[in-house]
């Protein structure tokens, strides 16, 4: 991957991070558009794998962008996506701390939360839509998704246990 492409990748993750309202997974549909649909850096399967690995491994889910960058261009790619996503989270809190208590800060906070919450919801739904739409038409995969969904809704099983268990099951069955 050329330096220019790497720089563009960094800038793309930097720019979308500014719009992360409610988790990086809400941004997944936009990342998919860039790295899979537009530039074909990785396949849809690789994209889903990076989410799955980050959820199964210790650490925050947000590290799926690290795995994604690594699949695109090794360590340099991992740094480009991760640092790009992290920079706004470093800059804006520092700024806000220094601006101090502005007039009507509480009201602004409430407005941002109430106003951006539904947008985050719509973005999250887009991510779900994309993952379902591009899922390979394998009924076993759909069944695993459905069973995971039902178990998480009905029980208090930690999600990571289900991911590891279905990983083990996936290794054993014939796809």
């Amino acid at each position, binding site marked *: 991957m050329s330096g220019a492409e790497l720089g563009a990748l960094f800038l793309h993750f930097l720019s979308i*991070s*500014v*719009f992360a*309202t*409610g988790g990086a997974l809400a941004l997944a*549909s936009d990342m998919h558009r860039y790295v899979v649909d537009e530039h074909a850096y990785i396949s849809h*399967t690789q994209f889903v794998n*990076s989410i*799955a*690995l980050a959820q*199964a491994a*210790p650490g*925050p*889910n*947000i590290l799926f962008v*690290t795995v994604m960058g*690594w*699949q695109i261009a090794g360590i340099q790619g991992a740094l480009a996506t*991760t640092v790009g*996503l*992290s920079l*706004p*989270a*470093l800059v*804006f*809190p520092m700024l*806000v*701390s220094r601006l101090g*208590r*502005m007039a009507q800060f509480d009201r602004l906070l409430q*407005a941002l*939360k109430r106003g*951006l*919450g539904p*947008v985050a*919801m*719509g*973005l999250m*739904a*887009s991510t*779900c839509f994309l993952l379902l739409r591009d899922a390979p038409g394998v009924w*076993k*995969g759909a069944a*695993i998704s*459905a*069973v*995971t*969904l039902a178990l*998480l*809704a009905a029980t208090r099983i930690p999600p990571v246990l*289900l*991911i*590891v268990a*279905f*990983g083990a*099951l*996936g*290794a*054993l069955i014939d*796809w």
Partner: protein
Amino acid sequence: MAPKLPPSADATALRAPASAFELFTAFAWISLRSFGGALAFVERTVVRDKRWLSAEDFLGVYAIGQVLPGPTGMSFCVLLGDRFFGLRGALAALGGFLLIPGALVLAIASLFQQFQHLPQVQGALHGMGAASVGLIIITALRMARTLRGQRVGIAVALLAFAAVALARLPVSTVVLTLGVASVAWAWRVAR
């Protein structure tokens, strides 16, 4: 609630981290124990074990992290680290949150890649990916529950979905138009 709050009523019980390094190790430990949602571990460590923030301050700082641009967990690390040691503290907390778990997840990913020619490894990734999809859908459904009864909120969520998923518009366009309009509306109705 603004950051840099004056000491709260129970300040006698609170303490500051001894060094930026303590912030690094605390957040590395939080991060390594959290599979996915880190919030519960963050609260336990920061409020109950370390006593760096009161429960009330924690919610205030977390709320600010949620609405600031950038992922919430990272913003929270920076707000907390910055409060005690400025930029050095912010970098220490954020580094603790990302560095060791990041190296670990890359080690796991490269292990999978090395053995990806094995059908079992392919199968395991398929299984994990499918389970992840189930997890993401339930997260979205739980988010959706908070919109119950909010007619404007539901309309905004549907519009955002239509714009990003169906019309394939960039997230930035949607947040800058719909997001700004939605916040302006919420600002007007907030009192």
